[in-house]
């Protein structure tokens, strides 16, 4: 019997185990002295149909439920969104250097956040924090602008879209630099935001990102087989009955929604979206049926793990999580790149 390259159960199980391990680490390791077992008991107690007494004080309970749990959930969703979006972008652009910020999402979010911080725009609308809101709007605006400009080009192709993204990103970065230069007092604050962090994680952020994360992951992962067809190029995909332009549009919008939501709550966390999917390609296989679902699991696990390190690496304060993802992820990726016998697809 013949079968193609499919997602093997052992890899799914491995991914789930690694994700659970990262989540447990995220819930139990911290600077408040709460016993690991008690922290887990407290989380279990909150689950439906489960009742265990963790023996924690109310303050400790609050730390577990209002600080650590949302932070783990947020880290997981941000990591998964970025990794899936990166995998999706790489697939539709057939470009190994594609990442979720390719069409200007990062620059757009940067401008949005900078405007919110520099001009101290009130309490936002409906009491929501204006920084994530404007960052989200900025990111989507940038992607749509790139899309409109890139698709209007005479030679409508993946390359023209990509170049439009580069131009839009440069333009928005210039706008951001200009605003910063005029408002030098907020540079530090904006810089901190840009480096990425989960320090402000609350249930509000979890609720903000969850729907975008779910919609974008379901769409991108749902199209995994079609994205494999796209690997033979637009012309051949067309003669196989696919409409590459439409697929590209759907994936770009879906992936950008996930990216914009992730950027809005966590700032710019580099590396996960670019290198995450490649690591899976090198270790497991190049089919999007393998890459995309595993990017979700391992992307989530990686960011939760990176956040644990970010919180505990130094005595005072935190290391920006974007620093940790690159600092830990780059050497690991280089090792994989050197040892894998598979092609960089």
């Amino acid at each position, binding site marked *: 019997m013949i079968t193609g390259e499919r997602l093997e159960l052992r890899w799914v199980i491995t991914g789930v185990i690694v994700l659970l391990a990262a989540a447990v680490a995220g819930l139990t390791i911290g600077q408040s002295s709460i016993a690991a077992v008690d922290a887990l008991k407290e989380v279990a107690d909150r689950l439906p149909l489960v009742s265990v007494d963790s023996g924690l004080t109310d303050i400790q309970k609050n730390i577990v439920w209002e600080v650590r749990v949302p932070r783990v959930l947020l880290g997981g969703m941000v990591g998964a969104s970025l990794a899936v979006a990166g995998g999706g972008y790489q697939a539709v652009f057939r470009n190994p250097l594609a990442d979720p910020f390719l069409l200007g999402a990062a620059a757009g979010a940067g401008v949005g956040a900078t405007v919110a911080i520099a001009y101290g725009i009130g309490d936002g609308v409906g009491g929501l924090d204006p920084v994530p809101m404007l960052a989200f709007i900025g990111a989507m605006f940038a992607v749509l602008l790139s899309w409109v400009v890139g698709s209007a080009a005479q030679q409508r192709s993946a390359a023209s879209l990509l170049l439009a993204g580069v131009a839009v990103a440069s333009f928005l970065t210039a706008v951001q630099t200009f605003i910063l230069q005029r408002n030098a007092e907020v540079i530090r604050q904006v810089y901190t935001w840009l480096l990425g962090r989960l320090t402000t994680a609350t249930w509000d952020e979890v609720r903000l990102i969850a729907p975008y994360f779910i919609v974008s992951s379901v769409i991108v992962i749902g199209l995994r087989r079609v994205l494999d*067809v796209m690997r033979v190029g637009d012309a051949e995909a067309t003669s*196989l009955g696919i409409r590459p332009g439409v697929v590209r549009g759907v994936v770009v919008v879906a992936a950008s929604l996930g990216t914009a939501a992730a950027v809005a709550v966590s700032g710019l966390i580099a590396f996960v979206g670019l290198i995450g999917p490649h690591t899976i390609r090198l270790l497991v296989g190049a*089919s999007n049926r393998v890459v995309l679902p595993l990017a979700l699991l391992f992307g989530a696990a990686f960011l939760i793990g990176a956040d644990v390190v970010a919180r505990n690496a130094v005595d005072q304060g935190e290391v920006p999580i974007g620093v940790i993802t690159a600092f830990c992820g780059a050497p690991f990726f280089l090792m994989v790149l050197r040892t894998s016998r598979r092609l960089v697809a």
Partner: protein
Amino acid sequence: MNTTTAAVSCADVSVRLGGRLVVDSLSLDVFEGEWVTIVGPNGAGKTTLLNTIAGVQRFDGTVELAGTEVGTLGARARARRVGRVPQHPVLPGGMTLVDYVLLGRTPHLGLLGTEGRQDLDVVAYVLDRLDLTPLAGHFLETLSGGELQRCHIARAIAQETPILLLDEPTTALDLGHQQEALELVDELRHERRLTVLSTMHDLTLAGQYSDRLVLLKQGAVVAVGPASEVLTSGGLSDLYGASVRVVREDGDIVVLPTRSTENAT
């Protein structure tokens, strides 16, 4: 052979690429079960004509597939009628042969669907038929030119379309593999009653395997008919600006390039 149904019908088809008229008011009927090969010098519009029939090229005029205008068909419906082996297929890195051939099942699947038992059976049969089963798990980049060519044909066959378009199926192959690939297509054509439309540079091979040849020059048809009528030394010399001799050998038409004695020093 049933020559009453036109599987492919082009009427007054013109294609402009970058302002240049590449296909010029061309009309051509290809009948069901027939193998027609388009020949002509480089730039005559052979590939563009195939792309037009495949529905991946904008054009003026009418192209009908078994009576249905190609433009009215959706992408999927079109891909169920016409399979195409391009001249230079893209080879995705890190993809196994079986996954590549499975891509041919795309028009038979829903957008979010995955291959079922039946699709795997079709592919298993095609791989077996093309002697590719032992290579099923190999990565494309490890295959030889002959194996790859069979692999591209396999994907088009797995698509199970009544019409097969082959753009230069033999260019990259040595003599033995050229014959092997063409024999294979011919066998499949008879087994499945396929209509085959191909382009070829080797006029002798084209004449041996095709029912009819279409001579194309600057996007227009110069001559249509069986090799014995179309391949004449005078006509070919005009068409290609080359010096050739046409020889009849055991019923085959053999086209020999010649070199006039005053040039050969």
